[in-house]
């Protein structure tokens, strides 16, 4: 792995009432890599990425982007800083079109009077840009970019959410359980999409339960247990059963951990 982590967290704590979702969690993501985050249900994976993406504010600890401490009080701030997240729930607006969803919060306005004073959206430019981004990711074979998102299949929606995350010059893309709700074929397509995004040089955090998928695409695996990072392993040096054993506490990671 090259030099310095692009995104780091140190000692994150997040409590919900009496539940401690994050208990002194650390995190490191290096440039150009796919880092998988695995852990049992309730281990705190979603809480970790929500803290990294500004959706929740940690009670303690710090987050560093490019080595500089950052504080996100909303997802918008994290996005502006270059951290794009595809949430488990996708965070798409089902009744809005593909274009509207891709541009939500970053709409383009017409030049001149109409845009400046009447705040008119530049719909043709937005359509063209959305079409270009979807094509780049091989998602745009034909058809209607004004289609409402709720008329799309699960895999298509995931595609739109990933395209939105990748479209706006992000430094980091976080994906929470992108294949959990998908069938075999759709999952495969999404994995290809992830590899494709990495090949553009954007590092990816992949939260997943699916061991075969994780071992297939990840460069490193962050194992989360009881609200903190237990260890980070190299998928080439560990087996899936090792990972599952660490994750569930059946086995403790020895000095083999990377």
């Amino acid at each position, binding site marked *: 792995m090259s030099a310095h982590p692009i995104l780091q967290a140190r000692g994150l704590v997040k409590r919900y009432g009496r539940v401690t979702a994050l208990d002194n969690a650390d995190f490191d993501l290096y440039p150009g890599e796919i880092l998988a985050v695995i852990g049992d249900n309730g281990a705190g994976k979603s809480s970790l990425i929500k803290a990294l993406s500004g*959706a929740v504010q940690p009670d303690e600890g710090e987050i560093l982007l490019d080595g500089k401490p950052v504080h996100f009080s*909303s*997802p*918008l701030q994290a*996005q502006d800083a270059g951290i794009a*997240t595809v*949430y488990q*729930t*996708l*965070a*798409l*607006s*089902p*009744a*809005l079109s*593909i274009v*509207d*969803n891709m*541009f*939500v*919060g*970053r*709409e383009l*306005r017409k030049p001149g009077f109409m845009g400046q004073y*009447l*705040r*008119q*959206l530049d*719909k043709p430019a937005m359509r063209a840009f959305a079409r270009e981004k979807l094509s780049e990711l*091989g*998602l*745009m*074979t*034909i*058809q*209607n*970019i004004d*289609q*409402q998102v*709720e*008329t*799309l*299949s699960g*895999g*298509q929606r*995931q*595609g739109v959410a990933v395209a939105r995350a990748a479209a706006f010059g992000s430094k980091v893309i976080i994906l929470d359980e992108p294949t959990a709700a998908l069938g*075999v*074929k*759709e999952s*495969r*397509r*999404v*994995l*290809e*999409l992830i*590899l*494709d995004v990495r090949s553009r040089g954007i590092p990816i955090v992949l939260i997943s339960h699916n061991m*075969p998928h994780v071992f*297939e695409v990840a460069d490193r695996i962050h194992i989360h247990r009881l609200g903190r990072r237990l260890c980070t392993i190299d998928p080439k040096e560990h087996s899936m059963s090792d990972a599952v054993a660490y994750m569930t506490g059946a086995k403790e990671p020895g000095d083999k951990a990377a």
Partner: protein
Amino acid sequence: MTQSAPKGQSFEHDLEKSDKRVASFEAHSKGGLHRLQHILHGNPTLVPVIVLLVSVAVFGLIAGGKFFSAFNLTLIMQQVSIIGILAAAQSLIILTAGIDLSVAAIMVLMSVIAGNLAVYSGWPAPIALLVAFVGGTVAGLMNGLLVTKVKLPPFITTLGTWSIFYALNLWLSGAQSIRSQDIDANAPLLKFFGEALSFGGARITYGSILMIAIFGVLWYMLNHTAWGRHVYAVGDDKEAAELAGIRTDRTLLSVYMLAGFVCSIAAWASIGRVGSISPQSFYEGNLQSITAVVVGGISLFGGRGSILGALFGALIVGVFQSGLRLSNVDVLWQVFAIGWLIIIAVAIDQWIRKVSA
């Protein structure tokens, strides 16, 4: 997507031969009813437009020239203009998955305030109206703050503010109307929207034109500005909108304030329409505005429907009332028919929303 070595799990290798274009966007080819559902889904105002045209045609046949005259058709416009403007404000709130039971109460309160200042306190009418506009916006802000900051459900919030605004209105007016002659003598500007352009039998009031203009402006804002897209996104799924980077509370506050402002414009128009200023007027206006919105195909669940639907909804209600009256049908059957309109409109909305990929 080029990978040399066969990637993936062994059980997936056969997939190489299968169609992998799951994430492409293909046309649908399904049965007729399914297609209808899709068409309505994409064009939520289609139903109210058809209902409006059909009901005009049917009442034209039944009631004949009395109904189908330029005079009567423009009269319907006048009759629905105030509820229509309130329905425009109501649409904004309902698009955010809220509901506003206080729209008519804000309107009446602001008409009383403008009337008191201009007629009794001798303020210049434009200043009195300006106070009413600010007052309506502040009333909307109050609803908005209760919904976003105190996190009360909109239904409860506006049920409460309905009572509060109504009580304030009775207190300020002493439950007394301001007479038409007094308005004419002191502040004729307040009745501006009662004036009309007449040609032939048609009589188009400025109030009717105002209603159309308000719908036009709001339609533009909702469909051609980022703000409008955010209103839809917030109504559709607030949590998703927040995660996607929308400041949802700000959007909601702006919607409630704008709705309050539109109600205060309705206050001005209502003085022209009614002639006097009565604290007891439009007591059912809150519910009538909701009726227009629902009949216009805007989903009570938020995020779906066009604001123009509410205009058509208001007109449908007006056409039914006028048509049934001119056909000499007892008033109770007007009420009966509008009840069915509401139920059928919501049932159709439920069906359309079940559209699947």
